[in-house]
């Protein structure tokens, strides 16, 4: 199909902040409770109740905004966004309208595989708001009542709105991955998409460069995307759909109102959603029940100082300090701060960044995956793994048996010495190895003759005998020494 267009994408990400209690009352935010067991007069919106701000939610939002390099105004306030829906018991959502907690930030994304140039994606704003409840629809009966569960009502959300700077579904995916990683590093959200801790809506349209001048297709907002993969698929589908629609109708931006479409993951299509006649008139006004939040410069500096190392800086440090490839640095950093600290412990103990990176990105990650555990539960400590690397380098641990030793450490939780003794691994020193080879060559004149006659594969038998005699020998060294002895019997 023609690809004569640029896809222009902006994302709106709702992040559930990792507080214990809700944004304006002290009900628990824990996921998975029985319906309507985590509500109180305040979050039910019972007459007479009043909201009180959760300090931690504001702190987590501030942290995130600073990590996204947003500007923080001296004062931010709360507004009511008014609409009627059964999962919104007050008839308005407490949100932020014209004085959000932060604006004008950015997030850098780069593709370690090099498919596109690193780019800076603008963050228009990041503001706090309260979540709504859930409607449980009776899909089968259709006409039956809906049941409303208000457990989630009032959970703190940070809405992060990106600028329309993304140009492909892959960029959008990468942006989301990088954002999620940042949030994970900050510890501000568990980012669990299945539990709704991270929700993504996308605004997308196409820019076409036509001979008569550039045109843009009407902007569509896509909802109901429940995974990053779904976001990518929905954006790809929607770009093609818009292109087709434009070719059929010629309709461009401004000729039809902004449409909302829902992503149907099973069918792999977006579908138009019924637009409400007055949906855009939210009648925002300052919430008189809440007072503004004022940040001092000192407070902002303090929170800024508490951010710790963020993913982009960590990647750079791993590359600069340990000589890691950007790909390896990316793999490590993408696993999150605990794995990076694990890696740091391995490097500290063995002094070899490259070796440490290989062990961590390959063997450790595989073992974690096999056992379905987190690095915190991993039985081999960073210093134990470092010791293993040291012993390989010194030759004490033959590299041929290193993986076997590692596996034993993982299985038993013991250190490398214990694993080696369990496996009867001992280092074989050079003189021992030489005398073994000499004995073998002397004892197998026929093989030596074959080798001399060019049948190098005969060496395999000598290697086999060597391993039988001492399992710790390095087969390639045996082969090398034997060859030398046969071809050059009297040095």
């Amino acid at each position, binding site marked *: 199909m023609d690809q004569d267009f640029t896809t222009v994408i902006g994302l709106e990400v709702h992040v559930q902040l990792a507080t214990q209690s809700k944004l304006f009352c002290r009900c628990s935010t824990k996921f998975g409770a029985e319906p309507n067991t985590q509500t109180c007069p305040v979050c039910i919106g*019972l007459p007479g*109740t009043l909201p*009180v701000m959760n300090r931690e939610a504001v702190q987590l939002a501030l942290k995130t905004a600073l990590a996204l390099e947003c500007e923080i105004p001296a004062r931010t306030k709360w507004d009511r966004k*008014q609409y009627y829906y059964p999962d919104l018991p*007050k*008839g308005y959502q407490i949100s932020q309208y014209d004085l959000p907690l932060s604006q004008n930030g950015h997030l850098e994304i780069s593709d370690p595989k090099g498919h596109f140039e690193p780019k800076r994606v603008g963050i228009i704003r990041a503001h706090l708001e309260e979540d709504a409840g859930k409607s449980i629809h009776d899909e089968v009966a259709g006409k039956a009542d809906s049941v409303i569960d*208000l457990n989630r009502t009032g959970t703190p959300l940070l809405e992060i709105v990106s600028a329309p700077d993304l140009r492909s579904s892959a960029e959008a995916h990468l942006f989301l991955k990088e954002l999620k990683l940042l949030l994970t590093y900050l510890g501000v959200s568990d980012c669990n998409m299945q539990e709704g801790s991270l929700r993504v809506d996308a605004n997308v349209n196409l820019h076409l460069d036509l001979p008569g001048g550039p045109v843009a297709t009407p902007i569509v907002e896509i909802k109901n995307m429940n995974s990053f993969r779904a976001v990518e698929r929905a954006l790809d589908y929607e770009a093609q759909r818009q292109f087709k629609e434009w070719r059929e109708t010629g309709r461009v931006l401004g000729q039809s109102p902004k449409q909302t479409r829902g992503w149907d993951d099973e069918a792999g299509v977006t579908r138009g959603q019924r637009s409400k006649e007055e949906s855009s008139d939210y009648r925002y006004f300052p919430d*008189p029940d*809440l007072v503004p939040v004022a940040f001092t410069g000192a407070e902002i500096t303090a929170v800024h100082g508490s951010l710790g190392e963020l993913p982009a800086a960590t990647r750079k440090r791993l590359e600069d300090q340990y000589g890691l490839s950007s790909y390896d640095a990316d793999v490590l950093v993408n696993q999150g701060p605990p794995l990076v600290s694990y890696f740091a412990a391995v490097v500290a103990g063995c002094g070899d960044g490259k070796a440490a990176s290989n062990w961590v990105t390959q063997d450790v990650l595989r073992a974690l995956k096999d056992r379905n555990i987190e690095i915190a539960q991993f039985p081999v400590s960073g210093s134990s793994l470092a010791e293993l690397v040291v012993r390989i380098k010194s030759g004490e641990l033959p590299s041929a048996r290193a993986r076997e030793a590692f596996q034993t450490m993982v299985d038993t939780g013991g250190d490398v010495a214990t694993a080696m003794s369990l496996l009867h691994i001992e280092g074989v020193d050079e003189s021992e190895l030489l005398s073994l080879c000499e004995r073998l060559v002397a004892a197998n004149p026929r093989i030596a003759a074959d080798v001399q006659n060019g049948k190098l594969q005969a060496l395999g038998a000598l290697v086999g005998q060597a391993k039988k005699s001492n399992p710790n020998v390095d087969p390639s060294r045996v082969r090398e020494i034997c060859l030398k002895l046969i071809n050059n019997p009297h040095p």
Partner: protein
Amino acid sequence: MSILQHTARELLGSLESREVSSVELTQACLDRIREVDERVGAFLRVNEDRALAQAADVDSRRAQRKPVGRLAGLPVAVKDVLCDREELTTCASRMLANFRPPYDSTVVAKLKSADAVLLGRTNMDEFAMGGSTENSAFQLTHNPWDLQCTPGGSSGGAAAAVAAAMAPLSIGTDTGGSIRQPAGLCGVVGMKPTYGRVSRYGLVAFASSLDQVGPLAQTVGDAALLLETIAGHDARDSTSLDLPAPRFSATVDEPLQGLRIGWAREHFAAGLDPEVEAAAREALAVYESLGANVREISLPHGKYGVATYYVIAPSEASSNLARYDGVHFGYRTDEQAMLSELAEERRRLESAKDQAGLQNLDTVLVRMYRRTRAEGFGPEVKRRIMLGTYALSAGYYDAYYLKALQVRRLIRQDFDRAFEQVDLIAGPITAAPAFKLGEMAGDPLSMYLVDLYTVSANLAGIPGLCLPCGRTKSGLPIGLQLQAPALEEERLFRGARMYERATTWHLDRAPL
């Protein structure tokens, strides 16, 4: 009714010395309610059993010399807008006719822990919207001084209960004058504290940035006693002032030295009833005779108070009342009737092939909301919701809501400037005494203009107090309003008490 002639402070003394038991006092109130409330209609509900049980409990604790609360044994009536755990709290609305909050408002909790006896719940304009208590969905309240007249509102039941000596103390709420105006029209003392002085937690909101809870009583000292019981910081109300509640009743009897009283020329302008004007001027003369320096001041933006108020209050109300949608609490329309109504409309539109009409036909949910709210709210509430929705809607926000917030600051600045020159501002509470019930029906704007002298204190957040200062030839009470700077309730009470001491209006009782 002799026992009920006494002030609350005197009664508290008698209770403490055990000259009178709380059961006797409570029974006297209940008897008086039985005797006159059929004519007055101040109470929506009287909980005799609970009141007598509370009274008996206080008496027995007193007898055993156990510690008791600050108002121990004193009966208090509460406006039906403050949540009382598991008790009906209706706001005089069909919408909340069966609403039983699972929690106590902070004010009710404080009354309970002060061991006050909760007599019952007083009538009001629906959701506190109105100035005559005629907007109650349940009953009319009559002015104890003239049963043909309004008691004022919205705390009309609260004021009438005190004026008719059915309760020594009562709790009201004031968003644009709803304590002070009925106090004035009923000849009792009513006080609106500084915004934030009393917690709004559990006060069913009308206009959140204006609503305050306050006391009504027969005397200034009694009002001071009740305010100090309900005031104080509350962590559950973000707009609550983080200040301790002073013991106003301990200082109320101390006259103010070198008092400067201002009267605003705008309060004595055209439209003021001559009898009211004469009484107010006489009150200023009383202050002068007490050694106060009385001078003229100007509150130039006061004339915009009503316009400002009738943008801000309905805007907030339209939002605060959005929660009454028939889903989580309160009234819901009959669903079957609603569904057949919709089906009927659809048939009609289909047979007329009215595509636009079909397109615009309410969904089931929207119709459920609209019918619920149409049936649950009375006309004044609907009017204000419409007005507020309009003022906040796209295209009008800047011209109305934002503009009103700016004028509000100008009104506040007028007060700031005035209070550089004077300690208190005195003037009439309303331009005229109580009007006849039904007189203003069908004329909402005239009704709104009754609030001319009272709304500014709410807009500015300052305390205001009304106390009796005369009577018309026809015998209706006339009220004097005093206003003080924010947080100067003590000054307000002391200044008011100086006048009260020098006059006898507060001793007169409604002829019931």
